[in-house]
């Protein structure tokens, strides 16, 4: 399956942050593993219709966070220690679940309804 990044120009979050968050989540979830090569800056910037500097900033911040590594001529790859341990995956899933549950509760759904909805979705 091809992994896809999305940038929404109408989202108030800056494009570099949208990209940074998506890439960090993909690495934390293990969808991108150590050594996996990312597309060149020019390709990603062109496809997403953003400036090359925007993608460069995303890559730079992820490099500073130890998730990516860049080498001249070798492109940008997921760092050897980039893949988070199982705890990181669980934490990411926990955060996503917390967001979902919080939103559902704020809209007035009961915990039973939330569990039932999740159960139905998971059996599909």
């Amino acid at each position, binding site marked *: 399956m091809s*992994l896809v990044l*999305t940038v929404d120009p109408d989202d108030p979050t800056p494009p570099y942050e949208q990209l940074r968050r998506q890439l960090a989540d993909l690495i934390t979830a293990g969808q991108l593993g150590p050594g996996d090569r990312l*597309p060149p800056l020019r*390709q990603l910037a062109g*496809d*997403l219709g953003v400036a090359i500097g925007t993608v460069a900033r995303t890559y730079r911040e992820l490099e500073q966070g130890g998730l990516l590594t860049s080498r001249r001529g070798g492109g940008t790859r997921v760092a050897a220690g980039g893949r988070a341990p199982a705890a990181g995956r669980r934490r990411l899933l926990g955060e996503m679940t917390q967001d979902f549950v919080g939103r559902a509760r704020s809209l007035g759904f009961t915990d039973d309804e939330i569990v039932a909805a999740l159960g139905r979705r998971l059996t599909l």
Partner: protein
Amino acid sequence: MSLLLLLVLVGGPLLLTVMALTGHSLSRRGVDTREEWKWVRVILVAALILGVGAAWLVTKSFDLGRGTMLAPAVLGLFVVAGVGLGETVVRPLRPEGPRTASLTARRVSDYLPRTLATAVAGITTLHLATLVLTTTTASSDDMRRAGRQIAARCGNMGSGAGPYPGSFYSVPLIFLLLVVGLVAAAALTAVVRRPRGFAPDDVSDDVLRHASTTRVLAAAGAAVAASHVGIAFFAGTALLRMDCQSAWMDPVGWVLLASIPATLLLLGWFLGRTLAPGAIVARTPAAQSL
């Protein structure tokens, strides 16, 4: 070199670029690959007309058959340039809204049709091998012009035949073929780096990119094949005309002549792939309702 030839060689590509940019700005109304293909064809026809003009001028400008041997490659260069420009410049603007990008790095090799790439590599190898052979075996003619004829000596008797594609012909031709190769490589790289979003969906985008690389590669193959037909004819007939031959001349002459019909078939196939639209991606529902 005449002023007119210089004007065509410099002004031709400039005119094609202006046409491509005009097509680029006129097709900015939305994603409609049919409209875009129309512009690609207009630029290709213009490149053909300019290429025929430039080839004719080259034929007239260089004496002793040098222009005739260069003409197919000159025409091919214009076709490759026209196809390259059409495929890289004439593209509509992306639609509004969220944009997506695959995390897979695109490489030129991923988009080259294997059979076509093998055929182009094969004819290029054969052509370059022929040029190396003719360059290393040619001698000076009676006016001491280096690399213009083939000569052999059998005891007291000597024999020579020309025109033979020695350095007199092959050096400018190899330079021209190098330019064709560089233009094709630049066009292929530009096509593969072309941003996504020029077709209604990612699958269609890949189909479009495959069609573009096919046309550029086929155009480059046609330039090389057309050039090989001429070189193989002159070299083969010169080798077979010799009254006094070295052992290798007769078989090589026949092999070169035998390569002509096969190369003509390849040339027809390459031209077909260059001119055929391949897959035209359907209009988006929004564009159809316009």
